[in-house]
């Protein structure tokens, strides 16, 4: 696979990768902090569990949003004669990163409704 194609595929999957990393960070950090009874530790006045979840969610949202915008721009710039794989990858990138934005938000919501170590 050429370097250009690798970049296209990575851009297409960036939202999913961001979601996976956010998932791992949220579950891992929450379990560790709650298991060690560090839930009461604060970071700039915010509980450390909530702070980690918020930061991980924000970072993942930024990555997914960049992937969405990048795929959108590439798709918009494709001419009539664009190759079918390019068209498919850019369309899939828009869809995957758009859905990733939604699930990353869903993944972060519980931290703002439930207690840290419920």
């Amino acid at each position, binding site marked *: 696979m050429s370097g250009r194609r690798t970049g296209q595929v990575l851009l297409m999957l960036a939202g999913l990768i961001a979601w996976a990393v956010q998932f791992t960070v949220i579950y891992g950090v929450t379990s560790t902090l709650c298991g060690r009874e560090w839930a009461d530790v604060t970071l700039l006045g915010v509980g450390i569990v909530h702070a980690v979840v918020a930061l991980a969610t924000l970072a993942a949202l930024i990555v997914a949003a960049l992937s969405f915008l990048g795929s959108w721009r590439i798709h918009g710039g494709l001419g009539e004669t664009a190759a079918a794989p390019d068209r498919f990858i850019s369309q899939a990138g828009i869809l995957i990163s758009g*859905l990733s934005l*939604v699930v990353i938000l*869903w993944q972060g*919501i*519980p931290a703002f*409704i*439930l*207690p840290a170590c*419920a």
Partner: protein
Amino acid sequence: MDLKTTRQGLPWRRTVTTRAAAFACALSLAGCSGVQSALDPAGGDALRIYWLTLIMTLGGTLIFLLVTGVLLYAIFAPPERRAWLGGRRTIVVGGLAFPIVVLSGLLPYGLIVMRDTDVPMPGALQVEVIGEQYWWRVKYPEEGGKSEFSTANELIVPVGSPVTVTVTSADVIHSFWIPNLGGKIDMIPGRINRLSFTAERPGIYRGVCAEFCGDQHARMAFDVVALERTAFEAWRAAQEKPAREPDLPFLSRGRALFRAAGCGSCHVVRGTEADGAFGPDLTHVGSRRTIGAGQFPNNIGTLAGWIANTQHIKPGVRMPSYGSFTGEELRSLAAYLESLK
């Protein structure tokens, strides 16, 4: 057999079908109320869970019917009429936007229900419940000058006051569930879990073990009685007292048999020499509504039957059958236990 009969089906078959449908409906509706029904909430937590169940069930049913309808339309409608189903707009709206909107609403709603359910309240009545094969050891710890005492297979709570039940298990995993009052909580050996709820309506409810725990799992229930505050305090004061001494010769004979048969090596009767910790505390067994963990109404007959045939009634429980008593002995022993109010 004429054509009309053939088309409408045989009369007896229709009758059976109608009766089966009516029976199924009646059976379903029977679960909507009663002492053990999550569809008849008697507390705030149970009400929240009830609404969540209702919304999920009705919403799920409507969506199922909608999808099934669209599926049938896609299969049976003429090609020119069903063509719109394959369009991009249908896929985006039906396959993406609709699930995202529905799930984005349900997720925060479910989380809010979780947040507002099982919230520990300051000043809650503390009760400890230990699950054992196949009964419930219930302890009311010392509180505000009131003594600690134990009972079994019954949970008496004051109406309108929060209760926190601390649960664990002495053997295998059980699960504590009072459908009318709240959610479930697992009882795990070596681990302490807590469940908080408030009974908003006086009444008698039924709690059950909600985790398969052995052969007699289905016969592991307990009574929950929600009393007004004054009645609860009177009940508590009575439970704190030691057992009353028998005042009739017949009952004294039962007490002597209780001692001679070694019942006291497994059961406690406070105020007597019986100090066994293995089985249920029998100090006020006569005041309980049921015996055998919610299996029979509590009276002399059922108590006698239980003592003589434990392994026949509930095979696998730790108490052996005491079938060697004569009828007269059994009656006096059961009468003594029944007198322990």
